[in-house]
């Protein structure tokens, strides 16, 4: 919970005068790192014209840096300001401090103009038995008029959209041509464990210049995504992500629509002409995760779509940001949610907006009734730490321009109907008898810290008296930037054994149904929401804070707000060693992961 910073500062000063010490537990030995030296285990559709993508254009009146103050600080030998929110100067006790890691940016010494310009995502329509070459490579991306060396799969951001029929198996020949080790994780797929892409658990990381062959199986219809599982805190925001759409053989799986669009939401943290560097030895921004100040859809600063009046558009929404949770809507256009990570909902529902946590996916259908412009927005409630007030924050991410010509065909009748999906309910029915059983496993989400700047410790001790269930924005980027995985350890704690993170080592039998209760402790040093992802299985969110969920959907990632207790029912159907972790990249990089072994029958 947060209190006005001015008052907090007074108390901080008093505590400082009293010689307060940081009351925290020592940080255990960090998870064995990999990557550059870092932490391992971390885990739009356009025709490919072969032409360079248009340079991202930022409307002149939407400069994300407008009004921001820059706190200049040396960083690994370079002067790099951290953008602060409007009216929020850097805390006096933090001025002049730098993170305890050296800095890293992709392609050191490489002239961006020597690289190919990034391309928009192509569609790779594949059938069972097909092969795809997927190369992680350096690309040139232009953001706000400045060219940067970044990453892309096959030179594209997002990477190619892989569209396959359900139950297909494809071969993906992955080639690592970036300057970091990498892998590919096929997020949400219940595939063969050895192709899950997690270093030290399912494979060795792929060194720069190396390759790895994946057999990727798609047992469930839905929307999925792929990304590296080595230093995601760097490789993801630099451009390594792509969608996978798995089509059901049932032609009525979804309602008919006029268009389909896959939107991948991301953000990028930039100063006027520079990317804010990453921690080389371990992630920085370890408290909250890196929250960007330039919001992107499919890698562009302004998404654009044309439609006809009355068009129904199905959007596949994926959050690939390191930390940001979105609240997405389409300028008041009527919207219904029809599916999420791994299946359709039991019942479609009208929604005013979509809450999209990192790694989550939702499928929505939107009808644009009238000619005109509809703004695609992210609308949240920020907290002004100085005034102690909530402040609405709205970012326009794009525009849907609707012409006066009428939709053809007209799907208004189908759109007006909220469908119930009996097949989903039938699939879930055998699991209902487990909904009310006692939890098989309990996890508490918390954190420890040590050696953080005193000003940070003192402020946080007071500031966390009020915690928002979801931190939508980073209100204190200076404190966040200075925290690294050396000072911050995010924790999954097994209530039964007291074991934490990679010491947990659960074993369950294949075919068992595991009820996992997760409590997000609001009394930790820095309570924050966590999107918890389980690899290789599927799960149901059966209750939140004791309230049963009456509209179920198969998930692989579930948002656990601060203070909440969430019951997950895991269908442990897929044998192997599977990672369970927070999908805020920096939280995982700071230890927040465990392994669940599903032992073969």
């Amino acid at each position, binding site marked *: *919970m*947060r*209190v*006005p910073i001015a*008052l907090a500062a007074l108390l901080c000063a008093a505590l400082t005068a009293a010689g307060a010490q940081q009351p925290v537990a020592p940080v255990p030995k960090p998870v064995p790192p990999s990557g550059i030296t870092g932490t391992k285990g971390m885990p739009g559709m356009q025709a490919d014209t072969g032409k360079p993508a248009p340079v991202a254009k930022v409307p002149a009146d939407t400069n994300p840096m407008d009004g921001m103050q820059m706190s200049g600080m040396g960083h690994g030998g370079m002067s790099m300001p951290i953008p602060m929110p409007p009216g929020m100067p850097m805390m006096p006790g933090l001025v002049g401090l730098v993170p305890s890691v050296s800095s890293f940016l992709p392609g050191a010494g490489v002239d961006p103009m020597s690289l190919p310009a990034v391309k928009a995502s192509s569609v790779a329509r594949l059938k069972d038995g097909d092969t795809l070459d997927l190369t992680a490579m350096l690309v040139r991306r232009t953001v706000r008029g400045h060219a940067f060396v970044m990453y892309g799969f096959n030179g594209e951001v997002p990477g190619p959209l892989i569209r396959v029929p359900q139950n297909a198996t494809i071969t993906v020949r992955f080639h690592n041509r970036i300057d970091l080790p990498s892998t590919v994780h096929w997020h949400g797929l219940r595939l063969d464990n050895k192709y899950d892409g997690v270093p030290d658990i399912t494979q060795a990381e792929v060194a720069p210049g190396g390759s790895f062959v994946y057999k990727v199986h798609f047992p469930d219809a839905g929307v999925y995504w792929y990304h590296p599982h080595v230093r995601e805190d760097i490789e993801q925001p630099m451009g390594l992500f792509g969608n996978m759409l798995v089509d059901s053989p049932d032609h009525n799986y979804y309602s008919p629509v006029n268009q389909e669009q896959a939107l991948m939401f991301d953000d990028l943290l930039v100063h006027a002409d520079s990317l804010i560097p990453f921690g080389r030895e371990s992630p920085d921004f370890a408290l909250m995760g890196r929250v960007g100040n330039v919001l992107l859809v499919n890698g562009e600063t302004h998404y654009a779509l044309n439609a006809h009046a009355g068009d129904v558009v199905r959007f596949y929404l994926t959050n690939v940001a390191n930390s940001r949770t979105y*609240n997405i*809507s389409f300028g008041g256009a009527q919207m219904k*949610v029809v599916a*999420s990570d791994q299946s359709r*909902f039991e019942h479609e*529902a009208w*929604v*005013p*907006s*979509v*809450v*999209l*946590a990192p790694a*989550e996916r*939702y499928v929505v259908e939107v009808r644009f009734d009238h000619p005109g412009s509809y703004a695609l927005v992210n*609308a*949240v*409630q920020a*907290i002004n730490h100085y005034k*102690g*007030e*909530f402040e*609405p*924050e*709205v970012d326009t991410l794009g525009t849907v321009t609707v012409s006066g010509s009428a939709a053809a065909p007209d799907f208004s009748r189908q759109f007006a109907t909220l469908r119930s999906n009996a097949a989903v309910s039938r699939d879930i029915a055998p699991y209902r008898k487990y909904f009310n059983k006692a939890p098989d496993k309990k996890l508490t989400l918390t954190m420890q810290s040590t050696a953080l700047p005193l000003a940070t410790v003192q402020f946080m001790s*007071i500031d966390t*008296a*009020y*915690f*928002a*269930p*979801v931190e*939508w924005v980073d209100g204190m980027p200076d404190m966040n930037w200075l925290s690294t995985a050396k000072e911050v350890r995010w924790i999954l704690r097994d209530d039964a054994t007291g074991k934490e993170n990679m010491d947990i080592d659960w074993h369950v039998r294949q075919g068992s149904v595991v009820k996992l209760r997760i409590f997000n402790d*609001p009394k930790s040093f820095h309570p924050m*929401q966590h*999107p918890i992802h389980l690899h290789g299985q599927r799960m149901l969110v059966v209750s*939140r*804070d*004791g*309230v049963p969920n*009456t*509209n179920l*959907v198969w998930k692989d990632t*579930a*948002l*656990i*707000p*601060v*203070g*909440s207790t969430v019951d997950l029912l895991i269908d442990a159907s897929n044998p192997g060693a599977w990672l369970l972790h927070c999908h805020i990249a920096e939280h995982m990089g700071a230890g927040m992961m465990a392994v669940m072994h599903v032992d073969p029958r």
Partner: protein
Amino acid sequence: MILEKVGLSIGGRLFIAVVVTMLAGPTGPFDIPLFATPSVPAARGVARLVYASSPFGVAVTADGRARYDVQVTASGLPAPAKLGAFNSYVAWEVTPDLDKWVRLGTITNGKSTVGQAELNKFLFVITAEADSTASKHAGPTVLHGTSPSGWLQSFLTHPLFRGVY
């Protein structure tokens, strides 16, 4: 009642009620201890904020405000008629400046669920009313509390200064 018998002051009883609420309760992070007014000194209660039904991980409005159902547990409320020409107790979500009152529903002793609270910060107020469907409050306040987010508004209600943390 026991506290009355041992002769504790209203303030003392309030203090103990708050401490017991915060220490005993299910320690939900979004519990609002409710304070009685002098018109109903024996009344007490807790309002728990529970996310409203939503397909998503949290229930929010289009502009990002959290949407809560409010589970009220109350005791010691007399029959409304004992307070005057009233027949029900109505729960309200009220802006901190008392400018806007939003009717959430009726409550009784025991457990009641009303909804939905959608303000960032609000007072939770229960009044006795002559009309259970009233859209404007008119009767006396019997119980009141502040949403946890209200601590942003009033530093002095911070648990640090109540000796709870």
